[in-house]
């Protein structure tokens, strides 16, 4: 009898499958002589995401990265990268990872080319021609081709950083971990690094730490904020930018606003109005509990009132607002 192959998984199930986690930590902690550098951390970094790891200096960002790479041992909890344990399988993990340390250190007597060749040979035995081509490609990528044969001891901080970025990518890693990649770069260098990160998303997952909020807002799709070794906020960037206090509409009005105010406040999906005044206008911050209905009805309702609506938009938070809110307020925001 002929057997007919019947798929066990439907296409819709595949499409709806949760994204694969590249990094997962559960209760990961690190303490030095009783002082907690990292408090229990639960993270999930999905494949092909650009994951921004935010925090002030000493927040625990570098500690987390070193734990993931097996450079230090956890005091508690577990971390897996590509499903492999960060302690017992760290070499296998590192064979699929590219890493840029916060302050890259290389052998000073080596040239940029020799450094990249040396790093490439941790991954590839040969052929020599292919390695040379990859090295040339990386030198071009970070704009160091003309300085390829200069010893590193003659390099500036920015050049070292760019070499660090090149050596982190020489193996076309599945996961790129960058610790403060743009910290010592000028604005053009920063822009280039962010472009490289965006380009790499197609092939790799990028996990990077920074305290430059603007960079995170420009390229990241998921953000985690650490404060004093503790995770205080995590989620997709759009959700974090929407704010932790729910959806808020900003309305500028002229004229008699009181009848409209009473009418708006009576709506079941409006949770409150904060009123302010500026240049003879009344400014409202209308908090809503049902963004969908608010989007459909709020403007129409305001426009039908006696006051003139001069401005109406949904409040957009800057990441800096969120960052300061959670750092200073000690508030936990998890999306």
């Amino acid at each position, binding site marked *: 009898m002929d057997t007919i192959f019947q798929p066990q998984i439907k296409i819709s199930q595949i499409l709806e499958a949760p994204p694969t986690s590249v990094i997962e930590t559960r209760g990961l902690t690190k303490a030095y002589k009783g002082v907690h550098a990292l408090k229990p951390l639960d993270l999930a970094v999905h494949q092909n995401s650009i994951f921004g790891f935010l925090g002030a200096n000493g927040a625990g960002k570098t500690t987390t990265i070193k734990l993931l790479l097996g*450079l*230090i041992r956890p005091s508690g909890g577990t971390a897996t990268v590509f499903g492999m344990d960060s302690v017992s399988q760290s070499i296998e993990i*590192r064979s699929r990872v590219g890493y840029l340390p916060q302050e890259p250190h290389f052998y000073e007597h080596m040239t940029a080319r020799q450094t990249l060749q040396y790093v490439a*040979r941790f*991954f*590839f035995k040969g*052929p020599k021609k292919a390695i040379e081509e990859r090295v040339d490609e990386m030198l071009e990528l970070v704009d160091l081709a003309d300085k390829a044969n200069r010893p590193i001891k003659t390099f500036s901080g920015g050049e070292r950083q760019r070499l660090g970025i090149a050596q982190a990518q020489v*193996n076309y890693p599945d996961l790129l971990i960058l610790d403060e990649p743009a910290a010592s770069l000028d604005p053009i260098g920063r822009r280039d690094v962010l472009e490289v990160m965006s380009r790499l998303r197609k*092939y790799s997952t990028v996990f990077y730490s920074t305290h430059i909020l603007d960079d995170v807002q420009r390229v990241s799709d998921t953000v985690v904020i650490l404060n004093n070794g503790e995770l205080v906020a995590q989620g997709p960037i759009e959700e974090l930018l929407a704010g932790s206090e729910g959806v808020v509409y900003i309305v500028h009005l002229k004229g008699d606003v009181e009848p409209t105010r009473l009418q708006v406040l009576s709506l079941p999906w409006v949770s409150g109005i904060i009123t302010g005044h500026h240049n003879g206008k009344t400014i409202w911050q209308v908090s809503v509990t049902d963004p969908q209905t608010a989007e459909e009805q709020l403007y129409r309702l305001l426009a039908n009132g006696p006051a003139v609506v001069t401005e109406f938009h949904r409040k957009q938070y800057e990441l800096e607002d969120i960052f300061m809110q959670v750092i200073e307020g000690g508030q936990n925001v998890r999306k």
Partner: protein
Amino acid sequence: MSGNSAFELVSERGWRRGLSNLLNKEFAGWWKTRMWWIQCLIWVGLIGFIVGTALFGSPNSRPRLGDMVELYAIIACILPAAGVIIIMQDTLVGDKRDGTAAWIMSKPAARQAFILSKLVAYSLGVLATMVVLPGIVFYAMISIGVEATPDPWPFIASLGIIFLGFLPYLTLTLMLGSFFKSRAPVIGIPMAILFLQQYMIGLLPVLGYALPWSLFVTTANPNISAIVPALLMGQPIYSYLPLVIMAVETILFSLIAVWRFNREEF
């Protein structure tokens, strides 16, 4: 690692992962820099000068083979051993302090391979530049300046023993480098042992079995002959135990270095 299909991937696994690359780098540090000829120049020059002065300094009397052998044994015991300690003190501590050890350990390289590459490359460098080449120069000089020269095979064996006598210093310094980040104890402890060992054996003769001094110079312990001079002079060797103990010390120090480096946090 999509896009790497044109490459032959590294096949080393476990403790050997990254070893060939690390070894190439360490060998290049010895043989593709000034290191090798500076070392050759120092040790050939030093032994050539001291032995040459003793051999040809007084034209009226021709020195005896026994005197030359004892002189050579003392020079070979102390000076290159100090050189080994000086060279080794920075190899691990330097990488730890400069941050290069952390950088390399973020690549797919085993920590055991990192230590082993240094051990192998530095041992062979020391063997070539501090033992074999100066030994050949010494042999050539006494062949000219002394009537009777030692047989070549015992001489080659004595070079092996001299090398074995350096290995405890080499591995002890490497081991201390795995414990400390400061250079002071890493260089100070082996140097103290090197220069105080004859007094230590005088106080506690049993130490003659464990300290390299007894391989080169007759000690207060009547049961141990100085093996190198005895071998070169064709005299009986009372005990090979010091050789076994030196080998055990070398292995032990190396294992401790690997164990400690495995626990290093970067």
